[in-house]
């Protein structure tokens, strides 16, 4: 596809804000999504290991990891909606074509994810206490399907970066192929890299859990220390595995990304993986702590930026696709609506939800909210009511104009 065609494929409706804003939000929300995905994959794998293990520590860990996995799937899906939205806004020519060319897989993604989620719930309800023979296997099915879902996403993203091959995929030898049944492009190194990252991120999560549980179960020091040890091992060994996968990915990049492996962005990605490896030693985290998870989140953010830089290298560097030339039809109201809702309503509501669940989780009996937490809840509720009022106010204003 030449650059004129790529520009023609852009939406003629333009964008309601400058593309740079969407780009930043894409990277940030994708980072949050991937953190949830990594915790989801890691905790599911740990729950599965625990379900099949005879070790008391492993069996004990399986329960909370299953709880974690269940919530992490929810969060991964919910947060994932945002980068899905933003990628469709600024990279629409690439995303839409890639999806149509593998349409059956794009649809299968939904079914695969649904079955994976329900299989996890099956294990939760049937075999939470250690797992029954069948429910343990349903958890294994769940993990396998989550990996398949990840692979489909990976393939769709990879195909989006190969516009020079689209026509060969859609009309091989000049005949239309409209079934959308093929996976046309994938990179095993890249896929494994993003999967393997689940190990160090979940390791960091475990170190946070160790610290959190310390307040509630201080007499369980041997078990908690075992959790911390496992977290440290996952961070270090997982980090090394991620480094190898990253090198494999870089070695197998297409010609359109030539030079990227030695770019500053790639060096930053390598540094962030090294950060994951050295984090346990850096934080002296034998007794756990929240610092390693913050470090892991920072590392994922750096990797997300490098991933975006690679996309830019291919689409702009090779194909000449310049994001900043996307036509803008500024819409002040919806810009303000999102910003104020995000900061006001979302800020208060999520801060309140986090604060109350954090505090209640640490309290042994019924938790009574402190005045500060209670006030936060009041602000969240008030912000929601104001939002609904403005919705109808502007609605009637438009109707009566």
């Amino acid at each position, binding site marked *: *596809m030449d650059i*004129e065609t790529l520009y*023609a*494929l852009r*939406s*003629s*409706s*333009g*964008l*309601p*804000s400058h593309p740079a804003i*969407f780009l930043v939000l894409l990277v940030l929300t994708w980072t949050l999504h991937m953190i949830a995905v990594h915790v989801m994959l890691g905790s599911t794998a740990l729950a599965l290991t625990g379900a099949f293990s005879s070790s008391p520590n492993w069996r004990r860990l399986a329960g909370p990891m299953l709880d974690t996995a269940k919530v992490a799937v929810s*969060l991964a*899906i*919910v947060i994932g*909606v945002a980068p899905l*939205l933003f990628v*469709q*806004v600024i990279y629409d020519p690439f*995303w*839409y*074509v890639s*999806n*149509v*060319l593998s*349409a059956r897989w*794009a*649809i299968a993604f*939904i079914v695969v994810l*649904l079955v994976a*989620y*329900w299989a996890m719930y099956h294990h939760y309800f049937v075999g939470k206490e250690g797992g029954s023979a069948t429910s343990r296997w349903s958890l294994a099915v769940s993990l396998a399907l989550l990996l398949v879902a990840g692979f489909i996403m990976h393939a769709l993203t990879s195909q989006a970066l190969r516009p020079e091959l689209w*026509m060969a995929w*859609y009309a091989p030898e*000049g*005949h*239309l192929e*409209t079934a*959308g049944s093929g996976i046309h492009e994938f990179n095993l190194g890249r896929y494994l890299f993003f999967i393997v990252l689940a190990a160090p991120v979940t390791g960091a999560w475990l170190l946070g859990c160790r610290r959190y549980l310390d307040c509630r179960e201080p007499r369980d020091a041997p078990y908690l220390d075992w959790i911390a040890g496992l977290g440290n091992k996952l961070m270090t060994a997982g980090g090394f595995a991620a480094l190898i996968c990253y090198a494999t990915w870089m070695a197998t990049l297409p010609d359109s990304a030539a030079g990227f492996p030695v770019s500053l962005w790639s060096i930053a990605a390598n540094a962030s993986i090294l950060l994951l490896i050295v984090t346990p030693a850096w934080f002296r985290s034998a007794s756990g702590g929240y610092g390693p998870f913050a470090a892991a989140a920072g590392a994922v953010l750096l990797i997300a930026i490098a991933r975006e830089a690679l996309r830019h290298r291919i689409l702009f560097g090779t194909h000449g696709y310049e994001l900043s030339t996307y036509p803008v039809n500024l*819409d002040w109201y*919806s810009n303000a*609506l*999102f910003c104020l809702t995000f900061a006001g*309503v979302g800020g208060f*509501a*999520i801060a309140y*939800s986090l604060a109350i*669940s954090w505090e*209640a989780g640490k309290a042994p009996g019924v938790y*009574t*909210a402190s005045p500060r937490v*209670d006030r936060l*809840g009041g602000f*969240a*509720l008030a912000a929601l*009511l104001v939002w*609904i009022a403005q*919705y109808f106010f502007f*609605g009637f204003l*438009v109707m009566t104009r």
Partner: protein
Amino acid sequence: MEYTTEILGLYPTWYQPALGSGWVLGIIAVIHVLASHTSVGAALVSTWLATVAVRRNRPELLEYVRRYGVFLLVFSYVLGSITGPGIWFSATVASPRGLSALIHSYVWWWATEWVFFFIEVVGIYLLVYLAGKVDGRSYLKIAWIFGLASWATMLIIVGILSFMMWPGQARWFTEGGTLNGFFGPYTFAQILSRTCFMLMAAALAGGLIAAYIRDGAFRLEMTRKLAWVGMLSAVLGAVFFQWGLTTLPESAQLLMKTRLPGSFVPTMWAILTEIVIYFAALLLRPGALNVPLAAGMMTALLIFGIWPEERARESMRKPYVAGQFVYSNQIIARDVPALGVKSELPALESRGMLALHPFIPERLRRIGEGNELEAGHALAIVYCSNCHGLGTTGTRPFGEMFAGNRDAADIERFIKGALVTGNMVNMPRVPLRDGEAHALAQFIASLPLWHSITR
């Protein structure tokens, strides 16, 4: 006037011969509607019940809210949260430009909905896991934040759905502005009718949980409560739905009268009557509630209520798929000066689809000896396959069109008389050039043969 456009921004086409891409999208959308309507309605019902439970200090009611929440987590939130993006995925492959047009105008509204969706998902977990573990005042705050955030997601999506049907204000085409596209009489009618139907779906789903309550007296109380909610919201929802129909533009009214199957209106009344009778019966004999009955009613709502309603909504905006300017076959068919959007029909009329579509192989760009049938097939894929099966399967299959007539000349006359001129109210104008109309007619006439070769 000779147009010099070199290429149009048309995407490749996914052709799904068994069901049709539209039906794939429709099936996912209908499942999503059931799950999402139930979850928003249930959020409002849960907020009310949690308020009663805390104010009157009734732990058994709090336990009901918790169990209802667990059911919602497994059913509505898993199904709803996955089929929600599922609609995007299926629309992406079935109608990329339609979805793109919506997203590029309403991205910030969708992002705003995402904020509420996030609050809602966190809220349902808090509602379930903190029941009985936090003080009453805090639990009420959690319930109200959850309920209002859930309702806010509906407020946003209703405006976008309204825009899909028809921009709220006619001035949107010239002035732009998402507010102008978002708010119209249909928006408000939909808010009321959908809120009622959501409450009705929640009352049906709530029956599933109530059927498991062991305490007989409490079970009867809950059944009666839900029956009142369900019956009142079904009746009010029907009234608001009728009002909503009067707010639709004339073309939608015409399509509803002429293009919907005759069974549509009786089916809708039948399912509504059945639901009202069901709730009335539960009021009289609450002890009759059981799980198969409640589950059967939810299934009936899905098959006889939501499916025809969604299909009708889809039909009424034809031939457009979004904002009355994007055809269901991806072509931009109307100028939108406010956004700098130009109709592609003049260019297609002047140069032809085969010349302007970026995903047409070079060997099919010019029709000649040896490629006429394949060029006709390519045109059918681009222009027709979004709504028609190109054989004997799928929706409105070509094999059953033209009353079985396979005379190429007759078919070409029909194409030129009705489609090229845009004389069919529910079909897009198909501005084929002479050679293209001839090739498409040849392809349709050859369908039995073509079908047997490509099957």
